[in-house]
């Protein structure tokens, strides 16, 4: 048995024979033609045929996996009809008297090369689309059949150097257990398509996979990114068990999405949603959210040319909070600055050298009451008859909390004078996402009604690692022992003061983190709505004492990997998929 490591691109496990997907090599020779006009007509005919093929694939993708995947082929259709591409090919044929194949190959190749030269992962990936479209036309011109799937007659793990969108759509899904590619990253087409189809995928597993003979038995673990070649019987059985456990878990999770999350020994925790607009409220309720742990309010401020006034904000907050009835909805006050700028705010500030450590969130709001007060007033008013709570982002010091609370009191006094209806006793909390706040949690806990830990920022500030930088992203993981120790400190400090703690970073919905967070005593798990049913089901599978034991062990671990391994061993249900 041999294990190869790649990038976990789409959750799930596949066990079965390998099928090598070999694309037919297209040999394009440059030839001189005597009748360029006829050559151009031949090219036009091939285009027409390619466009008919793509139209068919587009319809198939739309029916099989929905809008996102189909959009890729819509883009292909546009490329096929691109005036610059067509002009280029026509010029090459007519002026250089060369064959259509060579003309297309050269013109499309230069477009692909110019996209590849750009400093943007998305655009570089579009170069593959250009080559894919041009290969389709070339196959028609050369009379080469498109059947790299000949011989695929039983359910298999599809292995390739890399897969193009049309490859993945061509495959007969009843014979596809999962995808494994030698190249590609988590945002490659193969990865996106696999997630859309709900099939496991490992990408970037190295050239060795492309050399595996057909029918080699393998285990593909799309959750961990491992590919096990010729696993022994015991290993195979272990994965088969995980596979069936995951299937059961998923089915149960869906059927019990609207039931509470209670551990095996009776501890109930709240599972709530992160949402960013009014539509998100409905999606969250549909997935079984028991409230909102993070209502991002930026949606009201971004992509417009002026500040939203108090009335507009009130209407939005009121609509969202009342959609949840008596369930809690935690509104986070404006978190802009950093990477999110409001172009219409003109505070005459110079550009910042390091905006992530700059004038953002609560810092900006405290400096500009014209920005802060309408939001606070709107929230106080929307608290009437609802269970709305409010929290401040990016708090670093106790004095900031006091200053923010003073603004709230000022707003309450104004509303009272005006005779407006508002909720004076609205619960007030803070986001704990700056290491200083975690370290000072004991003092901060006295100043607030609750904490919500923002692990995305807390991890990157604690580790001094930008999580959008692929080279160092693992450093910014919430599984780092240093981050978990801060989380533990925050929860303990809050509970000592009788306050509750939520967590609204990606970690809350991460299956392997859930047992540890439970063990650390977290009261509320807030996540993107689609993650809710599974998270509830994992909580139901865990005993609190076992979780507490795992949390103690985790705090003594040396690395994030060690912690994840430990959880995988102790909580099979958390290895879902």
């Amino acid at each position, binding site marked *: 048995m041999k294990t190869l490591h790649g990038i976990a691109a789409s959750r799930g496990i596949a066990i079965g024979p390998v099928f090598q997907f070999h694309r037919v090599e297209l040999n394009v020779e440059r030839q001189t033609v005597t009748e360029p006009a006829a050559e151009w007509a031949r090219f036009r005919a091939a285009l027409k045929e390619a466009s008919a093929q793509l139209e068919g694939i587009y319809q198939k993708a739309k029916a099989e996996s929905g809008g996102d995947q189909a*959009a890729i082929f*819509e*883009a292909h259709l*546009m*490329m096929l009809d*691109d*005036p*610059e*591409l067509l002009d280029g090919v026509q010029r090459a044929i007519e002026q250089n008297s060369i064959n259509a194949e060579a003309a297309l190959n050269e013109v499309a190749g230069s*477009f692909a090369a*110019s*996209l590849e030269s*750009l*400093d*943007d992962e*998305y*655009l570089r990936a*579009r170069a593959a689309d*250009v080559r894919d479209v041009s290969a389709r036309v070339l196959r028609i011109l050369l009379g080469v059949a498109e059947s790299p799937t000949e011989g695929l007659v039983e359910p298999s793990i599809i292995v390739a150097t890399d897969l193009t969108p049309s490859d993945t759509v061509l495959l007969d899904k009843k014979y596809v257990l999962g995808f494994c590619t030698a190249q590609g990253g988590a945002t490659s087409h193969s990865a996106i398509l696999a997630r859309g189809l709900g099939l496991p995928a490992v990408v970037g597993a190295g050239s060795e996979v492309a050399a595996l003979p057909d029918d080699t038995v393998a285990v593909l673990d799309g959750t961990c990114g491992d590919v096990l070649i010729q696993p022994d019987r015991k290993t195979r059985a272990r994965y088969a068990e995980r596979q069936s456990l995951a299937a059961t878990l998923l089915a149960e999770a869906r059927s019990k999405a609207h039931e509470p999350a209670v551990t095996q020994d009776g501890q109930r925790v709240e599972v709530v949603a992160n949402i960013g607009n009014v539509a998100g409220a409905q999606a969250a309720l549909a997935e079984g959210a028991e409230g909102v742990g993070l209502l991002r309010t930026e949606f009201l401020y971004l*992509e417009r040319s002026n500040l939203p006034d108090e009335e507009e904000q009130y209407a939005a907050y009121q609509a969202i909070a009342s959609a949840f009835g008596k369930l809690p909805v935690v509104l986070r006050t404006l978190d802009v600055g950093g990477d999110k*700028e409001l*172009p219409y705010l003109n505070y005459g500030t110079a550009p910042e050298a390091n905006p992530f450590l700059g004038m953002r969130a609560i810092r900006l709001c405290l400096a500009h009451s014209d920005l802060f007060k309408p939001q606070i007033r709107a929230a106080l008013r929307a608290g009437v008859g609802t269970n709305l709570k409010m929290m401040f982002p990016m708090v670093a010091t106790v004095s900031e909390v006091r200053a923010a609370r003073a603004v709230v009191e000022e707003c309450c006094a104004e509303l009272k004078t005006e005779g407006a209806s508002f909720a004076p006793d609205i619960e007030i909390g803070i986001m704990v996402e700056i290491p200083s706040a975690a370290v000072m949690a004991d003092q901060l806990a006295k100043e607030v009604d609750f904490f919500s830990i923002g692990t995305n920022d807390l991890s990157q500030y604690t580790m001094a690692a930008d999580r959008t930088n692929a080279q160092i992203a693992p450093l910014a993981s919430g599984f780092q022992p240093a981050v978990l120790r801060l989380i533990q400190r925050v929860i303990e400090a809050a509970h000592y003061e009788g306050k509750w703690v939520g967590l609204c970073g990606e970690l809350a919905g991460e299956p392997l983190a859930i047992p540890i967070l439970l063990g650390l005593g977290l009261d509320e798990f807030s996540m993107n709505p689609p993650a809710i049913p599974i998270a509830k089901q994992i909580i139901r599978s865990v005993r609190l004492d076992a979780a507490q034991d795992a949390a103690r062990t985790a705090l003594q671990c040396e690395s994030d990997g060690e912690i994840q391994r430990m959880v995988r061993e102790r909580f099979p249900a958390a290895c879902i998929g």
Partner: protein
Amino acid sequence: MDEIRLTIQHNVGLHARPAALLVKAAKQFQSDITIAHGDRTANAKSILQVLGLGVNRGAQIVIRAEGSDSGAALSSLRELVESNFGGVE
């Protein structure tokens, strides 16, 4: 020749769906339409050239149109960009 200057506010910049929508809109008109970004210029009816501009969020572009329906073309493209591409993801 008429021209307008616009800032791309969309999250993904002038890529993906926004780029496709802009090219589709440009193709509705007879006029020759170009988009300039920095020192590069693209035919607005060519998805490949528009993507190749590499316009990210917050960048300024200049759209120029020449032809019988240039006024209508520019106002339609302005509306598309300013509505933030109708809110597509």
